[in-house]
């Protein structure tokens, strides 16, 4: 055995010992949400030493139970079965917390969590105007509280999950750079606005921070499973509820009626499966990517017209006609529009999210060979219909 080999083996043993004594530690907010839980599972799956602390709202079950149950459910939804159960129980712990409180309502964390890597994934995704104050409180004040806690913990790095749609009304190529708040563009809704403000707070916090901007996050690339139903699923649900409301007016009306929808007919929807978000986010972490902005997007771009057309078809509706302005809508179209208008940012104003910075740090982007075919798309839709909408149907049949 050469001296170099011996030295290498010793170095490896030293690293293993160090990891055992001082394992990688990750502190999460939003660990029971879609992106947060998927990232935790990815950590557990790919790093046998890593420890995870979830700052979790206790709800009625208690923080630990809620955290564990969510992760176990997520693992099963993402095709991992019970393979991570032991890791979930032995390497994940939860502390009751609330981002609305100073220091997230956490009194003191054990010293071993000092210097951990922090992931701020918690967010409110309520788009209607009446939730403006609540969303601002969670996404802006909440981020301020997380930043305060991060400083106290002396975290090594803060990964802040934002959204690619902080781009607001900008069109064309959107670069991985801070959003300027006075460059003449605006946001489409208070959610986007809250994320713009939160990004600035994180940037100006003095903490080394990666701002991660996913596009429209959908279920798992292989199983289609998802833990919650925002974004594309919210749009689907809005269309589905509209259809049912109209059926109460006239049972077979929506079988024949063709509605109009405001959207760019030549645009593309930027979808990204949740497992790709988690893998790329963790890839950036493992690569020690510099503080900065990273687009977790442009993995599965699909023509808007076809993507929405297939949604309508999956829900038993005719494909909509795309129009540019509200003036072209009939009353029925306007009612549909009112239900799904909050998703306009996705379908109006074609955007292309540059991911040069993200890809520069990744050995291989998670979605490198992925193609979101019609078959896959219909698989995602049908999964959602079977797992959620069908149950809602039973709830309101009478």
């Amino acid at each position, binding site marked *: 055995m050469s001296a170099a080999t011996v030295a290498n083996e010793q170095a490896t043993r030293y690293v293993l010992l160090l990891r055992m004594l001082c394992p990688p530690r990750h502190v999460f907010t939003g660990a029971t949400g879609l992106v947060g839980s998927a990232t935790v599972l990815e950590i557990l799956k790919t790093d046998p030493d890593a420890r995870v602390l979830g700052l979790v709202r206790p709800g009625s079950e208690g923080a630990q139970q809620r955290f564990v149950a969510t992760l176990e459910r997520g693992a099963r939804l993402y095709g991992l079965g019970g393979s991570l159960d032991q890791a979930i129980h032995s390497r994940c712990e939860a502390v009751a917390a609330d981002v609305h409180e100073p220091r997230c309502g956490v009194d003191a964390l054990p010293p071993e969590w000092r210097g951990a890597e922090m992931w701020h994934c918690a967010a409110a995704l309520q788009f*209607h*105007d009446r939730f403006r104050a609540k969303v601002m409180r969670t996404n802006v004040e909440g981020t301020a509280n997380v930043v305060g806690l991060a400083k106290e913990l002396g975290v090594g790095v803060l990964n802040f999950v934002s959204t690619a749609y902080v781009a607001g009304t900008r069109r064309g190529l959107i670069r991985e750079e801070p959003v300027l708040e006075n460059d003449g563009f605006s946001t489409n809704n208070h959610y986007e606005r809250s994320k713009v403000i939160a990004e600035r707070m994180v940037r100006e916090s003095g903490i080394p921070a990666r701002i991660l901007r996913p596009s429209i996050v959908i279920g798992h690339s292989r199983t289609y499973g998802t833990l919650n139903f925002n974004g594309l699923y919210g749009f689907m649900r*809005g269309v589905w509820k509209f259809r*049912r*409301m109209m059926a109460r*007016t*006239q049972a077979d009306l929506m079988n024949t009626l063709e509605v109009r929808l405001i959207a760019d007919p030549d645009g593309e929807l930027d979808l990204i499966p949740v497992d790709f978000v988690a893998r790329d986010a963790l890839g950036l972490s493992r690569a020690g990517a510099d503080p900065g902005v990273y687009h977790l997007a442009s993995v599965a771009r699909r023509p808007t017209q076809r993507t929405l057309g297939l949604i309508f078809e999956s829900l038993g509706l005719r494909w909509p006609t795309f129009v540019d302005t509200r003036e072209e809508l009939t009353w029925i179209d*306007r009612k549909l529009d009112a239900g799904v208008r909050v998703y306009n940012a996705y379908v109006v104003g074609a955007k292309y999210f540059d991911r040069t910075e993200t890809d520069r740090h990744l050995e291989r982007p998670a979605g490198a060979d992925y193609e979101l075919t019609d078959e896959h798309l219909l698989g995602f839709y049908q999964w959602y219909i079977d797992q959620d909408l069908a149950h*809602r149907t039973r709830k*309101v049949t009478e």
Partner: protein
Amino acid sequence: MSRPRPVFVVGTGRCGSTLVSTLMREHPEVLSISELFSFVTDLGSLIPRAFPAEPLSGREFWSVMADPSPRLNQLLRAGLRMGEIVYPFGSGRYRVDGGVPTVSMTMLPHIDDDPDGLFDALAAAMQARGVASAAEHYRGMFELLMRRYDRRTWVERSGGSLRIIRRLVDAFPEARFVHLVRDGRNTAISMSQHVGFRMALIGYALLEFLGVDPWESDDRSEIDDLTDDLAGLLPENFTAEAFADYDISPSLCGHYWSGEIKRGLAVLREVPAERRMTLRYEDLLLRPRASLERLGAALGLGPVDRAWIDKSLRRIGRGRSSWQALAEAEQRELQDACAPGFAALAAEGIRWPDQCGH
């Protein structure tokens, strides 16, 4: 002499049927029941409650009749009173903020000037009944009233009763049916402005977007899906202003009208031809004597009462709502919405001028 068959006057609502109840009230041999089924179903939202599949006791049945209907009382508390509600709030025992029994809203004051007294008498009699089907309880209640007021038959008329036509035909297979129809375009305009119809349509929207009936359930887990205007109409947020601001177009009501006409005709065709007739509201206004002759004959009471016709003629006025006053685009939407209903009626030989011209 065989007993005359009971009669249901059915329609989409806003088709002139309230006038028919008024005319029936004038008939010396008819017990006119007004708005029973539209109100015990709380504007068509609690249909299974009004027609339970299982037999029920007299006490349970009376609870269906008397418990305040949530939607109707919500409207009253907000100061939104339908013209059909004729309870004497000044002199009667019930107050708006305390909840008004469903049958006291219209049915009882339509029959008697002392609706509270009638309520008490009916409550005692109905609650003493044993277990029976809902239809038997309804029959029992109507017969009790016929005896009390010395009438030979009963005529029930509720706005929008085509919504429950299947239930009526199944529960009362012996009945005659008068189908009152009105130009869908004017009907739709009237619906879009009518407190009860607006509330019913708002109720459907809330039910679907919230996933539960908000007047029956506290579950608000799907509240994020409600648009802001609908959220303002939840029972806990409800205001007259939010109600007035909620946009309901004539074209939506036109679609509703078409749906109800199609559904209604499909069921009414099952009723033997000699026990159903269709009456156009416009004919009642333009050719009242001939229409009253037809209506009187449909009651199956023998020769039509001349005095009743003369008295009724004085009650018949002019119709309102004119769809031609709408903007051109709205007219077009409304025409399109009503087209399926017009087509279904045309198949029965019933037409209006310009019904397809646009």
